[in-house]
Every structure is written in structure tokens, then in C-alpha cells.
């Protein structure tokens, strides 16, 4: 197999975002849009990690705080905060608030390791792989777990 062919087959692009002090990667295929923070309308009695809904060119998009979803400390909204709009098949759009969007990286299959599952941890895992990019480690989001409704019930 030539290197080129391998790249085409297995390389995927990830948008690198900062959440707290960690770098996370979101598969670019599931990203619809990245927007600046805007007014979010609170939805009463929604799940605690949902900040509310925002208006994206006439479409109502629910927005969650990924911090709270992952049970991390809530961080302040700064100038660098962005809402990453994910497009999830059939179920429409979902926004997640991240602290910063830094870049797009291309990772080949070789550069992705399976996540370390800690069997003692009761916390749910939101990642399905760890990407190695240069000296950095990027946790790769498993989008489907973010929106998994079951555990919130």
C-alpha cells in the first residue's frame, strides 16, 4: 500500500477544541458550523447541562455546556468561547460550548490509539480514541455519547 492511498483511506480531519485545560478533537464530518457566543435562551426544566437554545439563521439549536455534560468545572465565557454546531444525522443540530477552537488536524489511523478505559471509574467516557499529533495528545470525542439520552433519564 502506498502512503498516499493509506492517507486517503484512513486519515480523518479533526477540529481541535479546548475544554478546560484539555484538547479535544471533533470529527470534522459531524461539524456543521462554528459560531461566536450569542444570546442563549434558557429552557426551563431542561437537563442541567443544557444552557438553552439559540437562533442560528432561523433554526432553533439546543446548546449544551460541554463542561457540565462532562461534569467538569464550569468555566467562564470569554472572547475565545465558541459554539460548535454539530450536525447529527436525523436528529438535527446541536451546539456545544467550548472554550476555544484552535485548529484542524489530520490524523491517520496509526496516530489514533484506543482510549484508556479505567474500569474503576464510574464516570462515562465521552471519547473513543486518543490522537497523537506531534507531541500533543488529543482526546477524540465520541459524538454519539454526548447526545445519548438514556443516561440522562
Amino acid at each position, binding site marked *: 500500500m502506498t502512503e498516499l492511498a493509506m492517507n486517503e483511506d484512513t486519515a480523518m480531519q479533526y477540529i481541535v477544541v479546548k475544554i478546560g485545560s484539555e484538547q479535544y478533537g471533533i470529527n470534522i464530518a459531524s461539524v456543521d458550523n462554528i459560531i461566536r457566543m450569542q*444570546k442563549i435562551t434558557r429552557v*426551563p*426544566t431542561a437537563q442541567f447541562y443544557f444552557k438553552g*437554545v439559540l437562533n442560528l439563521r432561523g433554526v*432553533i439549536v*439546543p446548546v449544551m455546556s460541554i463542561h457540565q455534560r462532562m461534569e467538569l468545572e464550569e468555566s467562564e465565557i470569554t472572547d475565545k468561547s465558541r459554539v460548535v454546531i454539530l450536525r447529527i444525522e436525523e436528529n438535527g443540530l446541536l451546539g456545544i460550548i467550548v472554550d476555544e477552537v484552535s485548529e484542524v488536524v489530520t490524523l491517520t489511523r496509526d496516530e489514533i490509539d484506543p482510549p484508556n478505559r479505567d474500569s474503576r471509574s464510574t464516570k462515562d467516557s465521552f471519547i473513543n480514541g486518543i490522537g497523537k499529533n506531534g507531541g500533543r495528545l488529543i482526546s477524540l470525542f465520541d459524538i454519539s455519547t454526548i447526545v445519548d439520552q438514556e443516561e440522562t433519564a
Partner: protein
Amino acid sequence: MDVSQYLEIFIDETSEHIQALSDNIMALEKEPHDMDTVNEIFRAAHSLKGMAGTMGFKRMQHLTHTMEDVFQEVRSDKVQVNSSMIDILFKCLDAIEGYLDNVKNTSNEGTDDNEALVKSLEDYLHAAEGGASAPEEKPAASTAEENAASTDAEQSGEAAYLSLELADEEKDAIRASLNAGQKVYGVTAYIDKECLLKAARAFLVFKAVEEFGQIIVFNPSSQDIEDEKFEFDFSFFLATAETDFDKIATAAKAVTEIVEVLGGEVDEAFLNGGKSEEAESVAETAPAVAQPAAQAAPATQEAKASGTTNAPATKNKPVAGRTVRVDIEKLDSLMNQVSELIIAKNSLVSLSNSTDGKGLTQQEATEQIEYLERITTTLHESVMKVRMVPIESTVNKFPRMIRDLSRKLDKKMELIMTGEDTELDRTVVDQIGDPLQHLLRNSADHGLESAEIRKERGKPETGTIRLDAYQEGNNVIIEVSDDGNGIDTEAVKAKAIERGVVTADQAETMSQKEIIDMLFMPSFSMAKTITDISGRGVGLDVVKSNIEALGGDVEVKSKLGEGSKFTVRLPLTLAIIQALMVEVRDEKYAIALASIETIENISVTDIKYVEAKEVINLRGVVIPIIRLDQILECTPEKEDDDNLTVVIVRKGDKLVGLVVDNLGGQQEIVIKSLGKYISYNKIISGATVLGDGGIALILDVNVLM
């Protein structure tokens, strides 16, 4: 030859005509002597025939033609309408629908001739004619004979072009082409005698052959052909570089309803009156002459198949109905708003061009922007409204279905529908058909008792099934109810225990509602015997999941012996409602105007307590009070003012007062869904985008009661 561009129109219009036919035939069944209805049917059948003919769908044309003939007889009182005839007519409709489905999927009508139907229709015709002609004679055979006869004529004589008297200038034109080294072919095309649009066919033939070269002589003249001033054949001379005449003939024959194309090369000798050579060239095409005989016999499937494969329109592209028919009023208002928009633009231009050089003043700018805002908002709303269609298109096939069911089940029943004009988003309308159909079938099959039992129970023999649609707040409600047996909860319980869904102990403690809800569980069919109408174990659970997929829900109320009512509630993802904007703390909410009774200013001291709940006594009516800020978990807490603004809302005969902080204006809002991820209180039924880009949540007051 390309009629595919008209295919969508054809499909739309055909569906409409089929619907019209269906409605009218139903009406005819009730009043067999209503001449208006008969005329209506005649017209619809006639239009269908014409359209099918234009599109070259011969089988469909033949069937509709026969239907039209039958109604011609009915019109002239030679044939009496009876119920077996109605049955046949409905079968014909189904057959036409079958053709239409084929057309939708393959752009072709398919190969089903529906001869049995045509025959039974013709039996009525023969009956009208006194039965002189043998009824067993197949219509196919008669057309075959006719066609064969015409082919005979063609064979016996020479191809018509050979005997044409050419004018001198025409001869010159042919000579010029010959001298230029081109070949000139004389061609005569024969059109099917039943063809309705001969000129169109001729035009298509010309178009086809002009791909090979230039037509230098027309006979009859092109003007006459255009005006359809010719019999069933026409001739022309084609100058071309093509050496193989068969190719040209094939291209011309590919046009539907062209029965035969004869022709051959012409030369100087022909122009000089010598015919020997032409005779030979005609002889050469003799094998082709054998074909029309085969083609003329519609029963010969082979010929049909080859005929259809010749047609260039045979693309396997499904043509789905992606169009929306729009009320002309809505379009007019759209047009008005667009013209207003242009005026607004013009006035902005003229203001900025004004001679004082200062441009717009602040005040002028604000005025213009406000004007623009108003126009764009209404424009936006109008466009959204265009997407809304009445549920009529979906529900109007139900009367027919109930009629069929009534016969099949041998129960007397009638369907009463109200609110067919309730509007829903196009996509929703398309999808509620199946669930509703299922509910109706359910009512007909399981709900209604047989006539004898009904008599015993003192009910009218004819069972009634109702379908009522109306808008309630942010929802469209569609109720399917019957006055039948109702749901036997004991039987459901027994079944549930038998199936191991619940234990006997559990069943004891279940409420009526919980028991009925079990009907919606997968593979829970109550029918004791499996019928093909309903009861295959894929019943109500499918209905429920279909409706839930649309964001709605379904509810049952039932009383044993009196009937049941299924209530389908569909939230209007794209619906537009009039709403009152209210403020609670600094948040904006919308309440559907339709559910608002009054708005009251109430002093805090007027609030009384009943069972530790706040109520007010408003003009003698005790109304419970709900504090929206508490339900909506608004922060911060606020001390009561001396006066409270209370919005009194109504659902059915119940009233509830909602305490709000401020009132906004009345507004037309577009309801949008909050999506599936966020789980919110049932009191919120959706959201709407406000003029400033902000979002207001919509309160569903029905949930409060």
C-alpha cells in the same frame, strides 16, 4: 418526442382527476340520477383520456376512453347506474392509479392492459346498444382488426409519397439537394386512427427526423399539418447525408401512435415521373410492413415491449411529487409583499440620492428600516404559509376506503369528516395518511359491531366513524372516533396476562388508561382473528411510532359499548399561530391567542386559597392560579406587586389563570421545534424566533389543566 418535462404536471393533474372521479363516483352511488355528478365524472374521465393520450400512455387512454363512453351512455340515459357498475368504476380508478404509480416510478405506464375491466365496461356499453354485438368480443381484437385493416390499406396502395404531385419548386428543391450530393428520402408516416393530437405526433416525427437532415418538402403543407388538416398519414421529403433509411424510419416510429413509416430514396428519375425504382425501394422496406400487423394486435406483448423500449422517455427515474399546489390568494399576497419591498427599496434609493447632499437623516433611516422590517417579516411569514397545505389532500381518500371496507366487512358504516381545511406543513400532511388510515381501519374492523348486534343494543344499524380535525393552540388535533363497541379493557387485560406483558397482580392495580395504553405496545393486536384489514400484530404501535416521529402523540378514550375515540395531536413544526407575548422576569414567552379567554388585573388581596392552592373568584367563577415564574423556575424570586397581571386561558370548559409580569403585543409566530436532544417541561411546546433574532418559548397551556 420528449414529453418527460410534462410528466410532473401530468402526475399532479392525474391525481387530482382521480380524486375528483372518486369523490363524484361516491356521490353518484348515493344519488344515481344526479346529472351534474355524471357530467362531472364525464369531464374528469375525458380530461384523463386526453392527458394520457398526449403523454402517449395508450393503455391508460384506452381504459379512460371506455369509461368516458360508459358515461356518455349514462348521460343519455341509456344505461342505469347500479352498484355493480360503481364497483367496476372504482376498480377502474384503482387501475388508473396503478398506471399512475407505474408512471411515477418508471416514467412508463407499465404493461397491464386491464382487459377484464375494459371488457366489463364495454358490457355496459353493449347492454346500452341492445346487446347486438357479441359481448365476448374482446376490445383488443376489434382494435386489432381496425389497425390491421388500415395496414392492409397501406399495403395495397403504395406509400402515399410516391403518388404525390410535386410542384415545380418542390422538385427544384429536391434536385438542388441531390445535386449537392445529399440523399433525399421520401417518407410517409401513418398515425394511429385513435390518435387525438395528430399535429403533435407529426411535429414529433419531424423533430425526430430532422436530426438526420432537413425536411425540404411537406405534404400536406406544414401549415395544414399544424392545423391538423390531414387524415391519418402525412408525407415529407428529407434531404440528409444518412445512407441508411432504416435509421430514420426507426427514429420516426419511436414516436408513440405512429403506426408505420414507409419511405425510400428518391432520385432524378422519380422527379421525372418514373416510379419503377421507388417501387423497388418500397419492396425493400417490406419486412418493416410485416411489423405493423404484429404491432396492431395489442395482445402481442412482444411488440408492446419493443414499442416501449423504443420510446426515449423510458428513464427509470422515479418522479415523486415534490411540488406544492398553492392557493392563488397566498401567491397574490406574496406578490404584493414583494412589490412593497421594491417600493421600500426605491424610496431608500431616492432618499439617499436627494439633492441636499446630506444623505439620510437619522429619523428617515429609522423610518425606512422599520418599514423594511415590517415587509420582510410579513414576506417571511407568507413564504412559510405557502408550505402549509390543508389535510384535505390526505383525508379525502378515506370515504372511498370506508366504502370498500363496508362492503368487505359487510357492516354498514359511514364516515363523517370535518375540518379538512385544517392546515399543516406539507411534509406532515404527507405522513399522517398512513397512521390515520390505520386508525380508521381499526375503527371499522374492531370498533363497529355488526348490524345485528347494533340492533340488539339499540344503536342505529349504520355505524358512524368520525374524523374531526381542528387546531387547538399549538397543535392540530385529529380525532378518529366511532360509536362502536369500545375497548373491552377486561379482554385487553386477559390478553396482556396471557402474553406475559403483565402479571395478574399488576393487571389488577392498573387504571383503565394504563390498560388501554397497552394496546400501543408492539405486537399487541386485539383482533381475535387475523384479517387483512387490520390486526396483523403490527397495529397501533406502528401508528404510535409514526405519529411520535412527527413529534405528536396519540391518546385513546373509550367506553365499553359506546365507542372509542383516538386523539392524534400533532405539534405544528412549521405552523403559524397568533400568539400573545408575555414576559416573566426578563424572559419572553408566547401563549396561543386561541386559548386565551381574558386578561385581568387582579389585586393580590383577591387571591384566596382552596385546598392550599391559589384561586381567584372572577365574576363568580373560581379559577385556579398558576404562577408561571415558579413553573418555569425563573430567577430571581420576586415579591408580588400589589396588582398581578393574570392571563386567563381556557381548555374545553376549564379555566386557569397564569400570572405574568408583563404583557407584550399580539404577534403572528412561526412555531419551531426545540429538537430532540433537550428534554423540557411539557408546558413548552416549541419556540419561535422573534423579530430581533431572539427566541421566545411557546407555552402550551393545555398541559396545565
